[in-house]
Every structure is written in structure tokens, then in C-alpha cells.
């Protein structure tokens, strides 16, 4: 087994364990910490594919900013341990078959066009920051700007909601 493959399986195992722990932990803070583990090991996977910039941004934005906000809110609410309920019949009976079906579908898709999944499609474009920004601001400029517009709308929506609370 090549060293990259070993590292890949280590990181993949770490992210799967993190994701499982995210669901199985009873305390919200522990779940949030598990999610951080998932985010960081995903960043490691990106790095393995040669996407240095994406990996760093993954840690800064997801691992840092977003998850800090999660942890902050959990701390602020002083949320305690969750009680597990089983009110959802769909989750109880349909959960496992649906999860298996999704796994099967993804696996089938990967086997079907294995070449495009296993080879990273544009390794050079991902490798350097210059190339990724060239792509973002030329080929994909409209999706990029639309996404930022969407985020702006979301921020303004949050502000409006917060202000309304204050007035009432």
C-alpha cells in the first residue's frame, strides 16, 4: 500500500468515526467537537488531493469560524445532555434501509464512472491559489457572485430578525 493510501484511509476512518460520534454523543458540546474532527480530517483529505488552498480555507471557515459559533451558542444556552426520544417512526423503521440505499447508490455511481472519481479531475487547477482564483473569477464568476449574494441576503435576513426581536 502506498503511503498516500495509508494516510487516506487514516483520515477517512477519522472522519467516519467523527461523524458517528457526532450522532451518538449525548452532549451537544461533544457532538460539536466531533464535527470539528470531521471538518479537520476533511481538510486533510483535500490536502492529500493537492488542494492546499481549499484545505486551509476549510479549516479557517468551517473548523474555525462556523464551529466556534456553534460552540459559542451551545455554551451560551448552557445546553445540557440530550434525552433520546423515539417519536419518529420513519427514523426508527426507515432509517437503516434508507442509509443502506444511499450507500449503495453512491457506491454504484462510483463504480460506474470510477475513472472520474478516483482521478482528481483538475489537479493543477486545485493546486495553486492563483489558478483556483482564476477559475473562480473567470469561468465560475456568475455562480461565485450569486453565492455571495445569497450569503448577503442571509446576513440581512438575520439582522432584520434580530432587530424585530428587540422592538417587540
Amino acid at each position, binding site marked *: 500500500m502506498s503511503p498516500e493510501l495509508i494516510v487516506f484511509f487514516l483520515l477517512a476512518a477519522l472522519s467516519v468515526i467523527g461523524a458517528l460520534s457526532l450522532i451518538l454523543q449525548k452532549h451537544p458540546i*461533544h457532538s460539536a467537537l466531533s464535527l470539528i474532527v470531521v471538518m479537520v480530517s476533511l481538510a486533510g483529505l483535500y490536502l*492529500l488531493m493537492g488542494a492546499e*488552498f481549499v484545505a486551509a480555507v476549510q479549516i479557517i471557515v468551517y473548523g474555525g*469560524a462556523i464551529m466556534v459559533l456553534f460552540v*459559542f451558542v451551545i455554551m451560551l444556552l448552557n445546553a445540557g445532555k440530550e434525552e433520546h426520544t423515539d417519536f419518529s417512526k420513519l427514523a426508527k423503521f426507515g432509517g437503516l434501509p434508507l442509509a443502506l440505499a444511499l450507500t449503495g447508490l453512491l457506491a454504484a455511481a462510483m463504480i460506474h464512472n470510477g475513472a472520474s472519481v478516483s482521478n482528481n479531475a483538475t489537479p493543477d487547477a486545485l493546486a495553486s491559489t492563483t489558478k483556483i482564483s482564476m477559475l473562480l473569477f473567470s469561468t465560475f464568476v456568475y455562480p461565485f457572485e450569486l453565492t455571495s449574494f445569497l450569503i448577503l441576503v442571509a446576513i440581512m435576513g438575520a439582522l432584520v430578525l434580530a432587530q424585530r426581536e428587540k422592538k417587540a
Partner: protein
Amino acid sequence: MNSVTTFLTQDGGFWVLTFIKIALLLFIVLTVNAYLTWFERKVVALMQSRVGPHRVGPHGLLQPAADGLKFLFKEDAMPGGVDKFVYLLAPFLALTLALASLAVIPFGPNPLPFKFFGHQVDLFISNPDIGLLVLFSITALGVYGIALAGWASNSKYPLLGGLRSSAQMVSYELSMTMSVVGVLLMANSFSLTDIIQKQSGTIAGILPAWNIISFRGGFFQIVGFLCFFISAIAETNRVPFDLPEAESELVAGFHTEYSSFKFAMFFIAEYTSMITVSSLCAILFFGGWNSLFPATWTVTHYLPSAILIPFGLWVIADGLKYETVFGKLILPGLGAAIAGIGALLLAGIWIAPLHDVNEYIQGPFWLLGKIFFFLFFYVWARGTLPRFRYDQLMNIGWKLLLPVSIANVIVTAAFVLFRSAP
């Protein structure tokens, strides 16, 4: 072949060399950290007309060792009702992340003049193309150490400290990241060595072309530097932004419930991030290892000697006046060593190998000198400034630093565009 693949296919010599470098850097940084506490206490004492530590060793020089021993031997108490895993994870996280960030800082321009099993010995552990982004991602994760410590302690004051720190660090991270964009635009690279190399040379033959004053390829970054340094002080939770541990309100903030060496780990983490921030200030805005003087002024290459020899002689004279036998022995010995090194470097005028050594240490000398200056600045701020109120802190972060640093980005971008236009 991407960087990870290259990294994984290195031979044994590379790994041995890297481990030696890491061990050496850790040893140096931890020692410097210990003496930074001594330095801080001495300087703050001088500012407040006190003597400072002076009992343990001459001028209190062994105080850090005594403190370290004390931390090791104190009882390691754990309060009841804590979340054990997170409580133990928090100091570990804080210290590891703080130390990890030093790995990407380059300390000198040239590799050492010998090879280690065929590997070039550079003055950095790693020099990734995305060096600055790596630093920012480590800083971004650094919040967890403090926030989780506050939460896991199961106590009111630490929780308040943890909340304050996460709010503060998230707010100031924005302006810290925005304020370096100007530098990035001018250097056109995330690599710290590239950023330093872009700042070499002079303006008009006399002023150094450092980003803080240089118009070369952009706009001078003094505003960016001020925003960066203020945000960085807040990011490292130092006075006047040390609200997470405001002792007059929160006992000791997030580390109230930590004792013994776990407390020391937070302490070391704080001082290590001070060193990282000081190096970043020096690298991004003050030319890194570039000399203050033009390259043609070769006489300035003997500045290390000019500092070391008088300082060594002063230490000898001071040691002879000292009352205790220990001081009479240690201080003159130390002074003789310092003055000796200075004299050897000065002898480089006549002896060729020593001349090469003197040329080689120029880069590290300037970089370390600048780092020391910023560390002094930290202590200076601590000795003179009162703490901000929490609402003032948030106002400065969001209403002053963030808009100003964004304006800095826009102005710099306009200048870069204007300069590069045909």
C-alpha cells in the same frame, strides 16, 4: 506530485533532520518563553518603580526555573463535576496549536552551509506555499483551547471567561485577516519567504523597502499594520484586551479552575502565540530578515558585535558589583561569553571563516531583533494601558478595525491595479 506526496516520499534523513529541528525549536522557544516571563516582570516592575524578581539567582534570573519546578510539583487538583475529557483536552489543544504555528515561520534567508545526509538544512521546519493561511487556520482553531477550558470547568467565572474569549477572538479574527490582505496583494503570494523577499532592497537608496513604508507595487501598509497589531493583541488575549482573564472581575477567567502544570500549559501557549504574532509583524510589515540599512553599508554588518560587546562588558561590570558569590561567578562568566561572541564576530574583519559566520547571522539577527522589539511592545502595552470595557472592545473590533482594514484593502487594491496597468 503535490506537496503531500512529496512529503510522504521523503527518505529517513529528512525525517531525522526534521525531528532534530523540531526538538531544537521547541527547546529554544520554551526557554525563551520562560525568560519572557522574567523579562515581562522586570520591565513592568521598572515601569512601576519596583524591583521585580530578584531573590532567585542574580537579578532573579533563575526565577523562571523556580516557577517551572513549582508548576511541576504543585498538586494537580481537578474540581468536581467537570467534563473530564474536555477539561483535559483544552490545555493540550491550546499548547499544541500555539507551538504548531511556529513550524511555518522562516528564521533566516539561507540554508546552513552543510548538508545533513544530502538534505539542505533550512532555517525553518516547513515552508509551504500557503504559509500565512496555515498560520491563520491554526489561529482559527486556537479559540477552542480557551473556550472549552471555560466551559469544561463547570464553574461560573471560567464560563464567562470562555464566552468572552470566543466572542472576542471571532470578532478580531476578521479584522486580523482583512488587515494582511494588503500585504498579500503586494507580495502576490501566501508564502512567508516570498513576502519577505519582496521587501528586500531600498527606496531612494536609503530607506528600507519594508511594507510599512514602501510604495513599491502598492501602497504603504501602516494602517494595515496598526489594525493587524491591535487585532493580534486581542487575539492573544493580552492587555489591554485580556477580558477573558480579567482578574478584577473574573478571578482568573477561563483558567480559574486549572492548577499545576495544566495552568502552565495555558501560560506557555499565551507566550508562544505572543512570539508567533511578533514574528508575523516583523515578517509581514517590517521586512523580516531584511536589514534596516542599505546592502552597500557593509559596516552595519558588525552591528551584532556593537551590541554584544558593550552588553557583555556591562554584565561583567555588574556581576563584579553583585553581593552574592553566585552572582559574582555567574554574571561575569555570562558577560564574558556574550562579549567573546561579539569579539569573534568582529574579528571577521580579518579572519575569513568568521566573516562568513557574521554574514550568515545577519538575517536571523535582524529578524530576532524585530521579534524582540514587538515582544517588548507587548510588555510595554501591558505596563501602561488600562483594560477596555467589554462594549468598548466590541465597538473597536466591529466599528473601527473592521471598516478601516477593509478600506485599507480597497485602497491597496486600487494602487496595485494602478501600478500594474500598462
